């Protein structure tokens, strides 16, 4: 019998190997289009984990979270596209093409700053009232992006910014097939590994935060704010920190999104997207990292699975498409939400249950 640390190590190696081989498996079994969908799912997972800090840990209901994703996306779009050179030829005659390694921390900081900007005036609000203000904030950002093409053309308005440079780090472009150690890595594979790295980073930071003094203080605020301040917790600063941390993760995800997609426009950042990310957190299991990852994965993949199954199924049965998968998506999504709220109100994979299981395991061992 292998002892516990060995088993954990073995599991970790196995898990890492699966993750590293995943793009090749998806590519071979399902096709390259599916790998692209998985790449997008990784971005959603990052977003959901970021929102989990605000909603899951600190208990602050945020309905405008996609705004921080937008801030990150526009950051990269402006810093790595011909747009600024076209709009302001005098200021940027050669255009701006900053490295991702510069844009990423900038975007995280800017998004974090926006998080504080949203947090500061809403410190006294909770629940529904906070949700309404954050919803408004999300819309304000989107409408800004939509209308900031005049008097100065900063965002190119509803047309959005196109021809964004693909991500490249240290001269290695992620938009081309690369051969490393004799293995061919197509572009979508490279993006997968890049997003995997950042998703792991977000998971790592989330885990450390969860078990830290800060994480415990957030949860205390979530449970009872008055009692939390009676414990000597500086509720103001910690709430602002939650907003800033969550927003920074959103900004990072947005930056990667812009580089991957090559195009950003305000319509990618609608209220529906905020609701989607919130649903990932709630469905998966608020405050539980693995639950949130599961929620993000499910909700990001579901529309694609539907698209690829509903139409062929209807074609085979009736010879024509009766229900559009897009409208079916919202129906199924609504049913799923209701079922989860009825039968698993803490989410599909909540944290406490698991911890309880683990502790009883230890006792019986």
């Amino acid at each position, binding site marked *: 019998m292998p002892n516990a640390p060995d088993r954990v190590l073995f599991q970790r190696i196995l898990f890492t190997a699966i993750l590293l081989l995943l793009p090749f498996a998806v590519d071979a079994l399902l096709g390259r289009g599916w790998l692209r969908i998985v790449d997008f799912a990784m971005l959603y997972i990052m977003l959901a984990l970021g929102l989990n800090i605000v909603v899951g840990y600190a208990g602050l209901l945020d309905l405008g979270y996609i705004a921080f994703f937008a801030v990150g996306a526009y950051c990269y779009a402006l810093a790595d596209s011909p747009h600024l050179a076209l709009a302001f030829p005098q200021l940027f005659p050669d255009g701006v093409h900053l490295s991702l390694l510069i844009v990423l921390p900038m975007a995280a900081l800017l998004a974090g700053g926006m998080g504080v900007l949203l947090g500061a005036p809403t410190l006294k609000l909770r629940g529904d009232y906070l949700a309404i203000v954050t919803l408004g904030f999300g819309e304000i950002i989107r409408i800004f992006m939509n209308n900031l093409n005049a008097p100065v053309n900063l965002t190119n308005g509803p047309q959005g910014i196109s021809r964004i440079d693909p991500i490249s780090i240290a001269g290695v472009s992620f938009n081309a097939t690369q051969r490393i150690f004799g293995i061919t890595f197509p572009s979508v594979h490279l993006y997968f590994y890049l997003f995997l790295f950042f998703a792991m980073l977000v998971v790592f930071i989330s885990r450390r935060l969860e078990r830290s*003094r800060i994480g*415990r*203080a957030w*949860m*205390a605020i*979530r*449970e*009872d704010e*008055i*009692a*939390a*301040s*009676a*414990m*000597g*917790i*500086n*509720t103001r600063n910690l709430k602002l920190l939650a907003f800033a941390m969550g927003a920074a993760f959103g900004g990072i995800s947005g930056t990667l999104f812009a580089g991957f997609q090559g195009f950003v426009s305000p319509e990618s950042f609608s209220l529906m997207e905020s609701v989607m990310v919130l649903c990932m957190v709630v469905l998966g299991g608020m405050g539980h990292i693995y639950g949130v990852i599961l929620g993000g994965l499910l909700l990001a993949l579901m529309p694609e699975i539907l698209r690829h199954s509903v139409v062929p199924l209807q074609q085979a049965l009736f010879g024509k498409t009766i229900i559009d998968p897009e409208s079916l998506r919202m129906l199924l999504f609504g049913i799923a939400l209701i079922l989860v709220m009825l039968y698993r109100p803490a989410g599909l994979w909540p944290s*406490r249950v698991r911890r*309880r299981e683990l*502790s009883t395991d230890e006792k019986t061992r």
Partner: protein
Amino acid sequence: MLNSLLEITGLEVAYGGIQAVKGIELHVGKGELVALIGSNGAGKTSTLKAIAGLQPSSAGEVHFDGKSMSSVEACRRVSMGIALVPEGRGVFARLSVSENLLMGAYSRSDAGISDDLQRMYDLFPRLIERRDQLAGTLSGGEQQMLVMARALMSRPRLLMLDEPSMGLAPLMVKKIFETIREVAAQGMSILLVEQNARLALQVANRGYVLEGGIIALSGRASDLLQSDEVKRAYLGG
């Protein structure tokens, strides 16, 4: 009053236009158990919140250990030694009992935290059985024990209890008050707010009667118990 730990002068608390506390004088000496009694809406909770810094006062001064608290934020007051057990208990329902207790020591960074945790389990043996249980699943009485232990985890010099008997069965109330007596016997200064005036005055050294935001009566607890006014208004004749 050299021995005063807490000294309140002319304290006023207002919510919008409504004045809940209208200028009160109150002091708690070192090692003293002081009861603050009064009916609903008399301003008891507001007074405690103002002392803890959770509710801004509109006038007056709070001195703790000789220092003015007017510019000290609530979170700093805890590390200075003021602990409040809020009304309605306020357990962190989805944290375990031990996590709740550790939150009590949030303002501390010394090495004695685990020893204190053990002391709390000795003081409240019920809590050690339920150490890994979520605090929200405890009974009302157990929750009251938990929040008292949690407040003690900050190693306070002044413990303020807001209605510890609220919503508890008589037997549990008795137990909670025994514990209060025990903690006081160890030298803790306590400011106890209660609606159950008889119980509060039985354990206290001194008492104040708050009525409509002003102190109507004050004195030794045993004298107040005998006072006709208190008897008529709070002890049922």
